[in-house]
């Protein structure tokens, strides 16, 4: 007895077994990973409609349900992505000699590709694979930054985590700096999601053959992935994973409290701004009275400092919302913009503070310390 799904291909309903459905979906995902871009989408659509024809032929012969063997035979007829190599080589890099020479300089001034080592010359004309830094989503505690770095450097992720953990413990004065570094790395380093990215992360040549193998061997990256290495490496990884979750919860709690506080502060500041014309920080913290020359400067500085805290707070809230609701996270450009804005506001705030308190020692040294640490990082 098997579970069966109704699926819609080209507007026609087919009933398909669960395992057959998984295989078909994997196959299509694999094709999409192989054929990218608009052209690729068109190709996969055409192949999908051909699969539809195969299925309706099956159904016209009196079959009710598409089974695993049906899907297998369709895949055999259509060809596995690694067997459709000509096209993908062509699509990515061209299939004939002349084009290869044209493309070679663009790919990083490589000489014409050496004779292939494996038994698929067309595939091997593929790009010289460069290892790229990605976040390793198959081996992660928070965002997979360390896992990705370990994969990039060819280290063992557990060893790397232990070393970094000790490093952080011994320099616990700069804990915030570490956290900021990690968060920025998390935001800016892309996650290895597609088979192509996973292969690039591992530094394996990206060709249709390996892409195919990745897809067939690993579960589809965005389905519930069981981190393989956790099962293998036992105690330490479990320890790190639990520690990671605890820390995550703690950071989340603290950041939400802070962000609520900041939101309240901002609102009250806005209220003050509207009621008193110009917001005076000395009204909130009397110790700062007499430090500043003009009230405009005070309010400018206050706004700058608020933004310095507000941006990370928004980012944290946003990220935790994304995690909780499983929503797609902010785009790369948004993140970069946020970081640039943050840097600008920090600079503005520091400059205004320095000007404002030129003659008097600034009493907020304790507050500015972490931000100064942040500055070191940004510079």
């Amino acid at each position, binding site marked *: 007895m098997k579970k069966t799904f109704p699926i819609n291909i*080209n*507007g*026609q309903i087919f009933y398909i077994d669960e395992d057959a459905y998984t295989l078909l979906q994997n196959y299509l995902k694999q*094709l999409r990973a192989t*054929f990218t871009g608009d*052209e690729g989408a*068109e*190709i996969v659509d*055409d*192949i999908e*409609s*051909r699969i*539809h*024809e195969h299925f*309706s032929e099956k159904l016209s012969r009196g079959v009710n349900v598409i089974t695993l063997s049906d899907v297998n035979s369709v895949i055999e*007829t*259509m*060809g596995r*992505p690694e*067997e*459709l190599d*000509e*096209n*993908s080589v*062509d*699509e990515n890099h061209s*299939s004939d000699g002349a084009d290869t020479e044209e493309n070679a300089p663009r790919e990083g001034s490589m000489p014409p590709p050496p004779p292939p080592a494996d*038994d*698929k*010359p*067309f595939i091997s004309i593929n790009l010289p694979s460069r290892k790229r830094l990605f976040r390793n989503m198959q081996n992660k505690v928070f965002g997979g930054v360390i896992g990705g770095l370990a994969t990039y450097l060819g280290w063992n992720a557990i060893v790397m985590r232990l070393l970094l953990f000790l490093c952080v413990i011994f320099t616990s004065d700069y804990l915030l700096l570490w956290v900021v570094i990690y968060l920025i790395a998390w935001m800016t380093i892309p996650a290895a999601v597609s088979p192509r990215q996973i292969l690039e992360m591992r530094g394996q040549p990206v060709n249709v053959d390996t892409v195919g193998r990745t897809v067939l061997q690993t579960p589809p990256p965005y389905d519930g992935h069981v981190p393989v290495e956790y099962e293998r490496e036992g105690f330490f990884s479990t320890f790190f994973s639990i520690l990671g979750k605890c820390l995550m919860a703690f950071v989340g709690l603290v950041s939400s409290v802070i962000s609520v506080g900041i939101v309240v502060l901002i609102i009250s500041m806005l209220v003050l701004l509207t009621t008193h014309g110009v917001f005076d920080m000395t009204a909130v913290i009397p110790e700062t009275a007499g430090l500043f020359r003009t009230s405009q400067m005070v309010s400018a500085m206050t706004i700058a400092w608020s933004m310095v805290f507000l941006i990370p707070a928004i980012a944290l809230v946003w990220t935790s919302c994304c995690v909780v609701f499983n929503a797609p996270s902010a785009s790369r450009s948004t993140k970069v913009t946020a970081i640039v804005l943050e840097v600008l506001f920090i600079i503005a705030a520091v400059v205004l503070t320095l000007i404002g308190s030129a003659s008097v020692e600034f009493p907020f040294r304790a507050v500015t310390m972490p931000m100064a640490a942040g500055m070191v990082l940004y510079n």
Partner: protein
Amino acid sequence: MNIENLKSQMRKGMLEFCVLLLLERGDAYASEIIARMKDAHLIVMEGTLYPLLTRLKNDGILTYRWEESPSGPPRKYYSLTPYGLTFLLQLNDAWNEISHTVNHLLNKPTENEQ
């Protein structure tokens, strides 16, 4: 260099030429092209055809139009463009040259023996 590679490369080189020859005889949709190729004993993975057609179309050699089918969803009918036709003629010349050379070489040993 293994024999299977060489064979598959030879077939690949031929595939575009064959598809264009098929389409010169009349417009067709993908499944029809596959059926005609099978008739001509040209065995390929069906999947190789689709990227090829898309590429030929993007290069302006082929064009397609949608046509209703008696059963099921509309079909993409591919046809040669005028440019595609000149392209095919050039391929044809190249093929004649190659086949001439190969036949010449194939026949030579027997001439020597005689």
